[in-house]
């Protein structure tokens, strides 16, 4: 210690000047990163559900999030419905949009290849965005936080109560999805479609219905993400695309098709962004996330938790 005494003392001096200790700062970066990461993770889960059943990357996934936020604002703030009514109603409406997306954009396509279907979802996302702009205009909207806006002090870091809701809803979503896929017949049937759609239809599983269900499920999860995000970040018609990009980043980072991978990918992405912005420079915030993503792909092309074997079988 004695040998390198001068740099640490300088460092201590700097710390003393600061109003918030470095430890508290790091804690703050972690909390913020995990919250933002939870949103990315939820978008990523939505990507994976559809991908697992259809191999489509649904590029309209971000629009579900946007619709969730805006419809919730409409029902809760404009129409004055209480939150416990507006919340499920919003999820139902967005789920219907997800079903329509499957029925109107995916199913009618003749001789579908995965690529044409992905392009169809791009078109759908543009249409959804345009309709949202017509309905709500270009202004952002706010939603009251679920349990007030008084921040909680936690070892010098500040936690908005809404952060707990975000992380809590991620946990609830993950638990429910796990139960659904592991314990219910429909869930197992969906997993079967994911493994081998031809074999699944041979044993009597209605693959078309499973595809419809996958779109409904990921729309519902997108809606939840939108509802819990809006009190933190506001919501406007234009938000979807960027969230989809971040969510997709999380998917690739965690491994396409892997649910634990989506959660890990989302949380890691959010945390890297937060630490990068705080400790190094916010101008390169997105760059840090991309560098980590590229590095992971170089070392393990299937993503953190993705399986190489599955990647080889998939068409996309």
């Amino acid at each position, binding site marked *: 210690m004695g040998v390198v005494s001068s740099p640490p003392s300088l460092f201590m001096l700097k710390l003393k000047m600061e109003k918030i200790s470095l430890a508290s700062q790091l804690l703050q970066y972690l909390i913020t990163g995990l919250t933002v990461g939870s949103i990315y993770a939820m978008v990523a889960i939505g990507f994976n559900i559809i991908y697992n059943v259809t191999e489509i990357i649904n590029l309209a996934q971000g629009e579900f999030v946007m619709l969730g936020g805006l419809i919730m604002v409409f029902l809760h703030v404009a129409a004055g419905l209480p939150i416990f009514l507006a919340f499920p109603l919003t999820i139902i409406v967005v789920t219907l949009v997800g079903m329509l997306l499957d029925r109107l954009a995916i199913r009618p396509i003749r001789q579908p290849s995965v690529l044409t279907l992905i392009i169809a979802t791009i078109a759908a996302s543009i249409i959804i965005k345009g309709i949202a702009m017509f309905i709500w205009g270009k202004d952002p909207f706010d939603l*009251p936080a679920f349990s007030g806006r008084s921040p909680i002090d936690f070892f010098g870091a500040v936690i908005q109560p809404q952060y707990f809701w975000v992380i809590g809803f991620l946990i609830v979503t993950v638990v429910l999805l796990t139960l659904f896929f592991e314990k219910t017949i429909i869930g197992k049937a969906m997993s079967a479609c994911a493994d081998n759609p031809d074999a699944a239809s041979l044993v009597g599983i209605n693959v078309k219905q499973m595809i419809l269900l996958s779109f409904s499920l990921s729309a519902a999860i997108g809606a939840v993400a939108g509802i819990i995000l809006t009190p933190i970040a506001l919501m406007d018609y234009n938000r979807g695309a960027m969230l989809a990009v971040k969510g997709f980043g999380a998917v690739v980072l965690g491994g396409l098709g892997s649910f634990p991978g989506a959660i890990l990918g989302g949380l890691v992405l959010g945390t890297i962004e937060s630490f990068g*912005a705080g400790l190094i420079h*916010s101008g390169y915030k997105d760059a840090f996330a991309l560098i980590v993503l590229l590095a992971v792909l170089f070392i393990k092309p299937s993503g953190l938790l993705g399986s190489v074997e599955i990647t080889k079988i998939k068409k996309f």
Partner: protein
Amino acid sequence: MKKLFIIATLVLFTSGFVGLAFAEDTVKVGAVFSVTGRASFLGDPEKKTAVMLADEINKAGGVNGKKLELIVYDDEGDATKTNLAVKKLMTQDKVCVVIGPSLSGNSLAVVPLAEQFKTPLVSCAASYKIVTGDDGKQRQWVFKVPQSDSMAAEAIFDHMKKKGISKIAIITGTTGFGKSGQSELVRLAPQYGIEIVADESYGPQDTDMTAQLTKIKGLAPQAIVNWSIGPTQVTVLRNFRDLGMRGDIVFYQSHGFGSKKNIELAAGAAEGVYTPLGACATPDALPADHPQKKVAMEYNQAYTALYNEPVSTFGGHAWDALGLAVDALKAVGCDREKIREYLENKKGFVGQHGVFNFSADDHNGLTWQDAFNMIVVKNGDWAMAD
């Protein structure tokens, strides 16, 4: 039946000629705005304002008894379309003066046309490069009415100096507006003896700026300047409040904050925030003896009554541009060279964004003192800062 058709055609033709002959007695002003497309938040209120003002002028007797004919084209935010529209206005429609375009990039793209066709152009975009050539001289035929970003930076720094603030952090959006603000703040800070201890940024779609603000909190500056447009600037403000930084650190917003909707969205976090704004954004807050009080009040009332939406500061730029053009037309008539000369020497034009004093060395005609009032958010409304 055939006869009837011929007669109808003839009648139509002659009435068309009558219409043309009648048109000779109008004064034409051309306008190019980004009414639709990515910059429609600029062009839409600009067009609405220009159309409304033209109607008002015609109701009040037009331009020296002649009807004011406003020809508006939409450039859709596209530089090529801007170019075509301006060329058409100058060569085919033969307007006396062109107002717009809405965007700095598009304005720069049509600067050569104004010089080539010797037609005065009053731009509604902010960049100083629109009126200042590479040689540092003012472009002969081009004027602009919006304040430069440097003026907002100066207004903020001047206010800081008065409050004894010397150590600040800046946080800016990564949009064109935010980047321009960032470079002006960094460039001008030393002139006011202000040290920038943190220079942070955020994307236009970011969800949370807590990390950047936590870093700033650690550096303990006396003030923060937040410079961007869109909803993210409000998120910064909300994160700032949630981090408990209010009270210790003075918060300044750029002139991109000038909509009451932003105060509302901040959900109480905007209280006590300082922002430099043009007069038309805050007509009620202006003192009775303010030179722009009357025009700002009248514009706000007329616009809200007609379109049932609040005035946008961008609409004010169209008001200033068309107002100046009509003022020149009334004084010298439709002579392009004389209009140019008149505008270059115009002093004391009371507009929505300041009292304009043009000269051969200044085709913007504004100083930051004319262009901005320092406004503070008080009880959820704008108020003059002391």
